[in-house]
């Protein structure tokens, strides 16, 4: 029976889940916006970052969030290198399709490497506050979920400010809106694309650390994430960060609430139903088009 308190509890959980989805999907939509790259390996990088957070905690006993000091710059550099060395070599005419194959291969390499280094054993970061929760209007809010949500909100805000307030952000948006015009006014679009990719991967570093706080991680976990994340960015409008954030929130809440009447299996299909509906009704996504270019 669905009582008022269960509904409210599920709503709160849905909002927290939506926040995490928004953070994890932000990078994915950025790659597509900047370079028309479908980055299948994004979730694999998330899991990689989660493993690094776990490793740092395991080895040094420090909070996994501190791993961000190292992983964010590291992932940014890796992203720039990835774009310069691999993505930029793809022919512009077929980059979207070929990037699927290329990044699929990268995902497999990361999964294999994680299995080799850390074994297939499932790992979980064990914190003194793992099971702690606070009460908000009668709903229990787990501290780790709140931290992950806060991290997501901060990262998205930082990303938004960077894109709207800095010269690099302007150059990146110009590159997204009209690459040729951007080149004409003197923007080095190749360099910008590299930094854009780095930025996307840096969000994966943050997302991975957030994920590690409240998930059991194992090398093949990324396959369970990439599907819903892809659905989110299509629904949100490829390339639109606010679109991805709104779609993530809406789908996260829907997933959480639909579990009550329909059960988990059907609630999970909400992503794919939303994906089909979007492709049928509005292929550019609900927040794509003009909004995508405004950020």
């Amino acid at each position, binding site marked *: 029976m669905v009582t008022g308190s269960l509904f409210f509890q599920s709503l709160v959980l849905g909002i927290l889940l939506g926040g995490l989805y928004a953070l994890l999907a932000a990078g994915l939509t950025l790659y597509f916006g900047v370079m028309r790259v479908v980055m299948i390996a994004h979730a694999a990088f998330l899991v990689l970052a989660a493993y690094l957070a776990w490793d740092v905690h395991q080895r040094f006993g420090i909070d996994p969030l501190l791993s961000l000091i190292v992983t964010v710059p590291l992932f940014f550099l890796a992203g720039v290198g990835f774009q310069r060395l691999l993505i930029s070599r793809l022919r512009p005419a077929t980059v979207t399709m070929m990037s699927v194959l290329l990044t699929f291969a990268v995902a497999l390499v990361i999964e294999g490497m994680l*299995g080799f280094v850390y074994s*297939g054993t*499932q790992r*979980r970061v064990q914190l003194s506050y793992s*099971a702690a929760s606070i009460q908000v209007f009668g709903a229990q809010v787990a501290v780790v979920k709140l931290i992950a949500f806060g991290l997501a909100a901060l990262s998205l805000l930082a990303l938004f400010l960077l894109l709207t307030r800095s010269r690099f952000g302007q150059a990146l948006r110009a590159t997204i809106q009209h690459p040729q015009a951007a080149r004409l006014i003197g923007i080095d679009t190749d360099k910008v694309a590299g930094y854009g990719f780095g930025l996307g991967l840096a969000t994966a570093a943050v997302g991975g650390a957030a994920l590690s706080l409240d998930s059991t991680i*194992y090398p*093949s*976990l990324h396959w*369970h994430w990439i599907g819903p994340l892809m659905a989110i960015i299509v629904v949100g409008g490829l390339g639109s960060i606010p679109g991805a954030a709104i779609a993530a929130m809406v789908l996260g809440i829907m997933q959480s609430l639909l579990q009550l009447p329909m059960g*988990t299996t059907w609630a999970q299909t909400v992503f794919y139903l939303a994906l089909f509906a979007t492709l049928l009704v509005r292929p550019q996504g609900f927040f794509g088009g003009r909004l995508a270019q405004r950020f």
Partner: protein
Amino acid sequence: MNARTALRLGCLAGVSALVLTACSGGGETGGGNPSEPIRVGISLPLTGDFSEPGKGVQRGYEAWAAAVNSTGGLLGRQVELRILDDQSNADRVVADYEQLIAQDQVDLVFGPFSTRLVVPSGRVAKEYGMLFVEPAGAAAQVFEQGFDNLFYAAPAVANDHYNHLAEAITAMPEGERPRTAAYAAMDDPFAQGTAYGLKEKLEAAGVQTVVDLVYPPNTTDFSGIAAQIANSQADVMVGGTQYQDAVNMIVALRQLGYQPKLAAFSTAPTNPEFPNAIGGATEGIVSPTGYTPEAPYPSNVDFVQRYTAQFGSPPTEDEANAYTTGQVVAAAVQAVGCAEQGDCQQRLVDWLRTATVDTVVGPLNWDAQGRPQSAHLIQQYVDGQIRIVLPKETAEAEFTYPKAPW
């Protein structure tokens, strides 16, 4: 294929009891040459969703092969394992066994891990007329496929795992007995089988089901499931689980402040990583198990010693079931006196139908569909240690109800 079978049949017809040495000219199958090893083909989920238990099964098989080889092998021949990785994928497991049997011409096959992989691979084994002893297909549907070559190498099928617990609950005085129960099971035949076996018995005893949820194996977020269970405030929480889902669910339940009087989860609690993964809040958690390293069966004492020396820690259930598989097949091979493809396989099957085999999980015998005819033990975390609490005859500690808060 036909020519090869005919050759082997001719060979068998031509000799009496010492078939193996007589068949030394049996071609590339290695069907009995004492200088050639007996090759055992296995496909295991070494990567993917089941890699954790899959690797446990691999260690169990390796421990068995090492033990057999150190005592002179099977029928005087060394044993050689050929293990392929099916990536937890049902299509791959079929291709793997096809390759092992038809191309690689292994002498024997052992089963993979998980019901979802055992059923398709069992079909391949049946098609080729191979004996198929398996360590991990415990769900009811495994035994409803019409396999006449399959044997499950553990004490009991999934639906009977909680029998001793159900008996203990039913035997409680009316006032103390739990009134409500919540069930959450992975959409997996084994995991569901364990939970629903108990559900059936508790419902019959008047324990009302207040939550009954099934979630897909790729579920990553358990907070929604936990919210429904916590809201029900059920006395009993039963998880039909594998490893990571049990861990995620327990943490999510704790985050919501839910305190059941009895919490039972299949598979995960017997995993050595489990206490660390849930932050040590294990007290009172119950789990069925087909194996304990402390069991006094003679071959188990030897197994635990050897295994610990080989891998540095005592074996768990996955390793033990794999080792048991080896013991069951070895007993048949020794009794019948052959181990190759063809007619020999049917003789191995026929022998096992009526046999009782002493293993590390106790003496095993099977019904016509391959269901083992024993029972699972019930373990519970008592003072931080996992102890057998039911049935009373083999208990190492007292069954605690209600459990301490987690």
